[in-house]
């Protein structure tokens, strides 16, 4: 027979795990299952629902607005990977190369935009992008003769570049911190050996440094792509008068489309279907990246 002390010890792990399990069950598993079921229903206002089978998915796959949102989000994700991350890496290398005491100050300056939140940044940049009086047009006009009245947030061709530029300001410093930490962990003797063998800077970086920090790079690329597919607040704050859609839906993201379907129109079923499609796209993109980088082949 168990003594009370033994009983407590046997139940202890479960008791300690219980809060986590309850929270996960209530706030993760249940909503996940509920959303899966909801994707096959149409909800109408707050209280009614009707089973519609695969109609939500059928509608999505034939909706040009959804494809527009998917295209916008994919462009943003590509810009994150091919513009934002190389910039972050460049800055990290710059900070890693010197030995100045200013390093910490620059690190803080570059990281600080991330502390203020996307809504604040969106509002700030909507002022900077103002035609004629905005600093960005003024700066570009002085530099290149760029039109003072260019409508960054009113011209469909300029809306996505405006969102990408704003996101660069926020996230370049954030991702730089990961790269900087990874660079500091690279074995200097390997780089030194490569240099003695006659490798130039680019060769050292490409053949020694980058492979040494591969895990961090793969992690940052995957989280950036996932984050890009969750883009929502930034366009909303930059383009408030059109609920983040922008002219000709040029700023509409898949999460913006989801929000519109679920919370403006009131069809939580369609919103859930969008959620599942986005999850599938992210899963596919992540699997592809893991495959391309060979991260899955390692033990």
């Amino acid at each position, binding site marked *: 027979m168990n003594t009370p002390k033994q009983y407590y010890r046997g139940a202890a792990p479960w008791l*300690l795990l219980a809060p986590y399990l309850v929270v996960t069950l209530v706030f993760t598993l249940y909503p996940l299952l509920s959303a899966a079921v909801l994707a096959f229903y149409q909800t109408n*206002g707050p209280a009614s629902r009707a089973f519609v089978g695969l109609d939500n998915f059928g509608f999505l796959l034939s909706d040009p607005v959804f494809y527009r949102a998917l295209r916008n989000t994919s462009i943003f994700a590509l810009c994150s990977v091919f513009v934002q991350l190389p910039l972050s890496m460049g800055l990290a290398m710059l900070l890693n190369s010197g030995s100045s005491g200013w390093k910490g100050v620059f690190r803080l300056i570059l990281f600080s935009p991330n502390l203020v939140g996307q809504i604040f940044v969106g509002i700030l940049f909507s002022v900077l992008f*103002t035609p004629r*009086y905005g600093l960005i047009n003024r700066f570009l006009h002085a530099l290149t003769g760029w039109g003072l009245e260019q409508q960054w947030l009113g011209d469909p061709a300029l809306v996505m570049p405006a969102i990408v530029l704003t996101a660069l300001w926020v996230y370049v410093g954030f991702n730089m911190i990961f790269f900087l930490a990874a660079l500091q962990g690279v074995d200097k003797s390997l780089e030194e050996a490569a240099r003695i063998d006659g490798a130039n800077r680019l060769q050292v970086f490409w053949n020694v440094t980058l492979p040494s920090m591969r895990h961090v790079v793969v992690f940052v690329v995957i989280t950036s792509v996932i984050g890009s597919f969750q883009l929502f607040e930034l366009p909303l704050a930059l383009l408030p008068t059109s609920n983040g859609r922008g002219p000709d839906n040029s700023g509409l993201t898949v999460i913006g489309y989801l929000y*519109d379907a679920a919370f403006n129109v009131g069809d939580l079923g369609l919103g859930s279907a969008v959620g599942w499609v986005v999850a599938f796209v992210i899963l596919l993109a992540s699997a592809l990246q893991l495959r391309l980088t060979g991260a899955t082949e390692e033990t």
Partner: protein
Amino acid sequence: MIERFPYGKAPFWLLALALSSGLLLLATRQQAARAADLTLATFAVQHYSAYQRILPEFERRHHVKVGIQLVDQRALQTRLQNAMLAHTAVPDLVELIDGSIGYFTRGPLKDVGFADLTTRMAQSGYRERIVASRFSKWQSRGHLFAVPHDVHPVMLAYRADLVEQLGIRIDELETWDDFATVGARVSKDLNGDGVIDRYMIDLPAAGGWGLNVLLLQRGVELFGPRGEVSFDDPRTVDTMLWYLKQVRGPRRIATECGWGQPLAKAMSDGLALFYIAPDWRSYLLQTDVPSLSGKLKLMPLPAWEKGGRRTSVWGGTGLAITKQSRHQDLAWELLKFLYFNTNELGKRFASTNIVPPFKDAWTLPEFQAPNSFYSGQRLGAEYARLAPDTPAVWDSPYTATAEGKLSEVFLHGAQYFDAHGEQGLRQVIERELTAAQAYVQRVMSRNVLGATH
């Protein structure tokens, strides 16, 4: 005691902290709920201050306690939607913003979370004393779910000093075509740097709110009284054609001045001479650009044809009573007290410039008082004169979808105009408009429950 806790000190303190904060939350929540017999939620700071000032009188009269909450508009809408979905507590009365009620009225009428005020309004005798067009926004299938707070008639605010200097006679700006002719004369590059420095009017190049206001003035609505899509109309094509010519190309007479500080700077610089000004915006201009005091005036919108409508409408707020409220009669009394209290409406107008739809208020002294910011014009009387002519606007859960498609049509038209000019533009817009309306109809036709009234 801590030593005898079997899992150690840290779990003990974590547990103690969790229990005490939980109890504290529970205690304060109950206290707040007990404190008020009626709860009113609003998103507008000015409304909040005005209501706070007069609520003690209502409390004295009815021997009740009224709680008032100021919540950001987006948060209020989301919380209300979620509370109604989860059947948790909601305020007794809620102020809703323009475009938000469609979500709640999308399903069968029995599911609408607000009390049907149709009978109460008819029996109270107030219905005829309110601007009729303002009920449209808050109705669904003939049932009224909120009472309008405002009219929001639209006028044009203009830099009277510059307009006078340029020899523009306001009485000659009778139609939008007259306006465009004068605009073409005065919109120009003043310093020869190739950039236009003075425009006739502030209008967005992408259409947006500017196009909406002008379409409504012309009688074009996104949705009709039965919720049907109604923007595929020859008047929409004509308005878009006119608008495109004013905001694009080298002979444009309009620029977008933005909001807040950029707008204040543009107005001070005289970048545009005329600004679309619904009643609420006239107050914003007053507070945002105080340096222009005495230099601005208001005029009715030019009409689309001689003798036509000289105003439009932009925005709106309504007060709804939730079905969950256990004090429906008291909530109705509070609604009447806040919206039809003539003693208060004068003061409220003086501090907001917002014209109430309750016509009795328009004779109050505050509406006849000259406004020094607007060069001594009797602002209240000017707006009130136009108020009965404001067009009806029918709300729909598909408003954002329709606005998005309309914006698409306009921008495709703009791209064509930029590339090919006016030749063939009408046909492009007509084709796009028909396709856009068909798309919205297709989205709406998916609503399998909405038809069940």
